[in-house]
């Protein structure tokens, strides 16, 4: 690698050229927008999650809680207030209701940050979209009541259909799962597909030769590509977070996780770009790597027995998923996230050293 300081002006010129080229390259442009299309598709399929349609909720409230008052005033929510918990269970079992049991002293415990228990009844046979919309609604209302971003209550999720595990019965919030999955897909997709494509296309079309006899050196070329990858990551991921109203929970941890995860994925992409010679090679290996790095997102809905569960922990994106799951649920504390942050940071440093090595190979003189 050149020892001279990378020329920031040239890095920006190369990045600007690549941004314009990415817009002109339909395949690349579509692949950049793919996570947003997937997100829109997801919203379309589970359209009732966006508040469209009626949500039927059976409530047994011993606390005269403000949560019920809020729900009562919400448009699109039909509230059935029942005398006993058993009545709630019966209604959820028989009809397309979701149920809520609020214990006495709930609001006071909430105000004292005592993390009170809230029992949520669902019926997984009644369809996933309604359940997820219900869970999201309850999360949002609890945050609103508590006035801060960490989830203030313990939620006990009970599936009246008897399912103990799986997508809708095991306490997994589909909205959170899809948000995390699409965020990781965006980051990893841009990292292992878009970024190496930018670099390898320069090799394949021989334009890299031109760049290297121009005032640009290998460091500027690689940094320019990294800048494009980072910009793409921030725009796509940021847009998805805003569209999905995901800046909730411990959002600074979410932000840190997204930045670290993006850096890691981009550096992996740059190392791939340094190593591969053709777009065909990139496409082949990107797909393999994409599946590999997306594996940890599925662990949330398909818990794996050991040793597979342990093996998934060897995948760096596992720690990104863990951070996002914790931070977006509002459960993240320094004590719970420091190990994942450290692992992700170490992986990023390792990926950076791989990039340095590949740049040296490219510039082997």
């Amino acid at each position, binding site marked *: 690698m050149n020892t001279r300081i990378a020329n920031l002006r040239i890095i920006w*010129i190369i990045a600007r050229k690549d941004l314009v080229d990415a817009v002109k390259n339909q395949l690349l442009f579509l692949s950049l927008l793919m996570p947003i299309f997937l997100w829109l598709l997801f919203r379309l399929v589970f359209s009732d999650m966006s508040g469209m349609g009626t949500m039927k909720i059976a409530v047994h409230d011993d606390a005269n809680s403000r949560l019920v008052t809020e729900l009562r005033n919400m448009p699109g929510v039909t509230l059935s207030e029942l005398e006993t918990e058993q009545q709630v269970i019966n209604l959820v079992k028989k009809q397309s209701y979701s149920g809520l049991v609020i214990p006495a002293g709930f609001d006071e415990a909430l105000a004292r940050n005592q993390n009170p228990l809230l029992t949520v009844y669902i019926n997984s046979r009644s369809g996933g979209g309604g359940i997820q919309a219900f869970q999201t609604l309850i999360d949002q209302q609890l945050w609103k009541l508590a006035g801060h971003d960490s989830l203030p209550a313990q939620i006990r999720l009970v599936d009246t259909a008897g399912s103990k595990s799986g997508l809708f019965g095991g306490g997994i919030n589909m909205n959170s799962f899809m948000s995390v999955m699409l965020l990781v897909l965006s980051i990893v997709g841009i990292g292992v597909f878009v970024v190496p494509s930018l670099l390898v296309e320069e090799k394949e*079309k021989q334009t890299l030769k*031109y760049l290297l*006899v121009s*005032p640009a050196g290998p460091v500027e070329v690689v940094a320019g590509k990294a800048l494009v990858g980072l910009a793409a990551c921030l725009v796509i991921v940021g847009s998805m977070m805003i569209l999905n109203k995901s800046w909730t929970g411990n959002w600074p941890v979410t932000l840190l996780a997204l930045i670290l995860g993006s850096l890691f994925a981009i550096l992996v992409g740059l190392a791939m770009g340094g190593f591969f010679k053709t777009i065909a090679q990139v496409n082949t290996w990107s797909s393999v790597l994409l599946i590999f790095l997306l594996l940890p997102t599925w662990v949330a809905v398909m818990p794996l027995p050991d040793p597979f569960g342990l093996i998934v922990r060897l995948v760096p994106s596992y720690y990104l998923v863990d951070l996002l799951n914790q931070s977006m649920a509002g459960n993240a504390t320094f004590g719970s996230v420091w190990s994942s942050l450290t692992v992700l940071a170490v992986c990023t440093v390792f990926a950076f050293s791989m990039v340095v090595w590949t740049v040296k190979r490219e510039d*082997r003189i």
Partner: protein
Amino acid sequence: MNTIEVEGLSRTFNGRSVVDKLSFTVQEGEIFGFLGPNGAGKTTTIRMLTGQIHPTSGRASVYGFDIVHQRQQLKRRIGVVFEEQNLYERFSGRENLAFSASLYGVDSKRVEEVLEQVSLGERANDRVQKYSNGMRQRLVIARALLHKPRVLFLDEPTRGLDPIVAREIRLMITSLVDQGMTVFLTTHYMEEAEHLCRQVAFFDQGRIVGLDTPDRLKASYGKRGINLTLLDGAHLYIPFDETKNGEHLGELAASGRILTAHSAEASLEDVFIQLTGRRLAE
């Protein structure tokens, strides 16, 4: 003044010698032809002289800048036309040049100047994908000229072009040299080298096997004489080195028996074959 100075320049790849102890000089304002078959090491030599790779040993400077230690200064004084038409295909001609202009910090007015210089003004906004081979080559040359380099490296600039476009490119090269530019040219085409170059180097298996002006090379390795075809179909060779042969030629001419007469001097191709034992295209 010597624009390019090369002394004992060598390069090995994985222990295999590709360029072996090259030494030559190129004067300012001359076209230096570098002729050799595929795989002879021409492109490796250009890559070293343009600062893309370092030599294993030896030294060279271009316009006074050391190719190893002053690469950044060197890059701003040279223009390179690669063997491949390595352009950004999704960009227009103008966008390609605008990108290069920003890399070199050149004013955008210069983009319009070079577009006119290579007669691409009218098609400047078309995507390069739509350009013909000749237009692409002119754009590659325009890009190399954008920052007004003092030395131009041309790697097979007319390869694969139709004769009319190839002629245009040669005229362009001549006009650049008339303006004081130094040109380092690699080519397969002997006629091109013969017509354009003041000096040519024959290059084979990493070594220079012959270096001189085209005329001197042809004179050194060719025959001084004339080949005649007579009206009766007979062929005759008359060397110039004996006085009586002049009289004989005069007699034949006077008798009106000569159908055609050709100089028997060697072509550069002949010289190359004599020096290396093989043809340039092999």
